[in-house]
């Protein structure tokens, strides 16, 4: 059973689908990338969710540690530097896809393993 489960998870990930437990939705990271661009999220957060000191206050949302419901609540209700997005503009299903996309972003290498960064004083 354990082997079958890991195969299923692997295949699911390979298909770009993530089971998001709190939503009960099979979200698509691939669709999420499309939605991330279409709804303008990339404009402040970069195409990879890497953020910028100039636009996202330096916040990195790639691989965000927020659970989906907290992420959704923030996007719907924020009144800070980031403008909110209502469900009318970004439906829940698309927001879940965006979340899946962000979760799929690769972890960065340690800076000490990148010569151009480790060698700068």
């Amino acid at each position, binding site marked *: 059973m354990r082997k079958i489960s890991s195969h299923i998870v692997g295949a699911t990930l390979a298909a770009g689908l993530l089971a998001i437990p709190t939503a009960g939705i099979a979200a698509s990271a691939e669709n999420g990338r499309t939605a991330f661009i279409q709804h303008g999220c990339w*404009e402040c957060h970069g*195409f990879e969710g890497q953020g910028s000191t100039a636009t996202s206050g330096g916040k990195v949302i790639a691989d965000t540690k927020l659970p989906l419901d907290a992420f959704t609540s923030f996007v719907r209700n924020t009144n800070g530097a980031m403008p909110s997005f209502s469900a009318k503009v970004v439906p829940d299903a698309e927001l879940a896809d965006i979340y899946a996309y962000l979760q799929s972003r690769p972890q960065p290498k340690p800076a000490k393993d990148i010569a151009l960064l480790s060698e700068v004083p």
Partner: protein
Amino acid sequence: MPNTDSSVKLNRRKFLAAAAVAGAAGAVDPARAATTGTSEAQARLPSAIPPNARVAIAETDVPDVPPYSGEGRPASDFMVDVIKTVDIKYAPANPASSYRALHESLIDYGGNTMPEYLTCMHEESGVGIAHGYYKIAGKPLLTLCHGTVGLQHATMAVYNAFCDRVPVIMINGNDLDAAYRPPGVPTIHSAQDINAIIRDFTKWDDTPVSAQAFAQSFVRAYKIATTPPCAPVALSLDDGLAQGPVRDFGQPLYIPEYVPEAPPQGDSSAVREAARLLANAEHPVIVADRAINTQKGMELLVELAEVLQAPVVRQRARLNFPTTHYLSRPESVIRQADVILGLELSDYWATVNSFTDNNAQGVGTNQRRVKPGTKLISISASGLITKSNYQNFERFQSVDVPISGDVEATLPALIEAVKSAIPADRKTAIAKRGEAVRADHEKGRDATKQMAAIAWEASPISTARMVMELYGQIKDLDWSLVAQSGNVSGWPLRLWPMEKYYKWTGTSGGYGVGYGLPASVGGALANRDEGRFSVSIQSDGDLMYAPGALWTAARHKIPLLAVMHNNRGYHQEVMHVQRLANFRDRPANKGSDLGPIGTSIMNPDIEYHKLAESVGWWAKGPIKDPAELGPAIKEAVAVVKSGQPALLNVWTQPR
């Protein structure tokens, strides 16, 4: 050849010979004075002493002055004599009929040297080149404009220079005499007061009506422009005056000598009060914006910071402080401050408060950034030239100790006052403060490097990757980042070691987009004379306002490596329009672009490398794969070292 002797001098040979002859006759013989008897001592002295030989010569002889006057001599030739008395190396300008007389005199009579005419394709480029040049060389350039339509072109660049406190000497051509100027275009291009269009953002302007007045006016303009707070100045030059023969009205023309004016220094009692507050602070913070223009100034600021062991926040107008110094800290330290010393801040209000653009009516939310009771000190010369119309003075912020004065001129007194004011029993606490700041600095640098590693392999290329690939190829050169148009998340200032003032010359002042290209050409021109390697991070939108500056760089052999931050849009406006769509709860219409309609620069994508090649640059692109970037930059560096400018069209992340 024009005579460069600017002062009226007596003929030395005549003076010395006459004085020797007259001396025996006119001077009192000391020996005679010492032994004279009573009868001579009692002789009546005249009420007016006759002049001795020296005074007689000065009052009656013809001074041996250079032949500024002369039958039929063009007035504009004399104007070149005037210009050559101050140290102006270049005149970047677009040609114009309204100053044709001065143009001809500059290149023929003046030999096209001091200044050398640099052909520009837009008046905005001429001013922008002068702006960038000054920030490296510390000396102003002359630019010439057609008086109406040319000056209209130049206005944004003049505003940028005014906001950035950079001197530019402008001569703007006009044709005042309505009865005699040619009809048609010369008349359409004339005005009663051509400098009116820029008067709100120049420090001084004048319309001399004679050759002699031009001499006085030009030297005065140069002095006013270069005395802190520096700023552009403008002369309106009547073509009828310049083109006609010089008229001296029977009085020999002269050129006033330029003597640099000492900059304004902060009031001594205010400086002592500031020192007292800083010396006794638990958490002093120094914030520097447009403060430091010279290497000496940077050394003074380092000295002050080290005496206080106070963190220094570098804002964007100048480099101000070495990036690698352990006291260099980010803006977040302002929250902990109990005393803040603001040095030539463009915006003190926004330094100690924040504004969040989160309201559909545009009102936003303000929040105080500092603790209640924090003492604020300001040293700034900007208040000395505050004008009304243009709002570059920002929101008003009350400070506890406001000091009017030039920062570099005031720092020596402040440093001494702080040293005297530090109580002996505070020295240990101050040293401990420095150790804590050093530890934070080290941690901060490690965290910054890790942030730079995010999206390292992404395409479009991350701004961190682009910036560090560039640094990797120039790090062993005496490099200078002459412009950074657009916004690459500050990576060069966050990661590149910068310890000399010329490593980074700051932002445009007025944030008028289009500054980056000409300013980088001007900075590179100044660096060329010093043998330095100039690099710029060139954004796409900025380049396209007046791309002719590319040609000027190639034409005049100004070596420059421009690495493009091509994010394919006017990105600030991409975000602004998106924000409004969100406020109004509707999707932003993007058409077939990535950004809202009217903000993207794509479809078609501009091939900047081909544009640059077409005007004499070496160029390559588009580069979208980060693995290709390092080798391309290496190739470009070799080209620039040979003297040719080079451009790399790099597709990057938005910020």
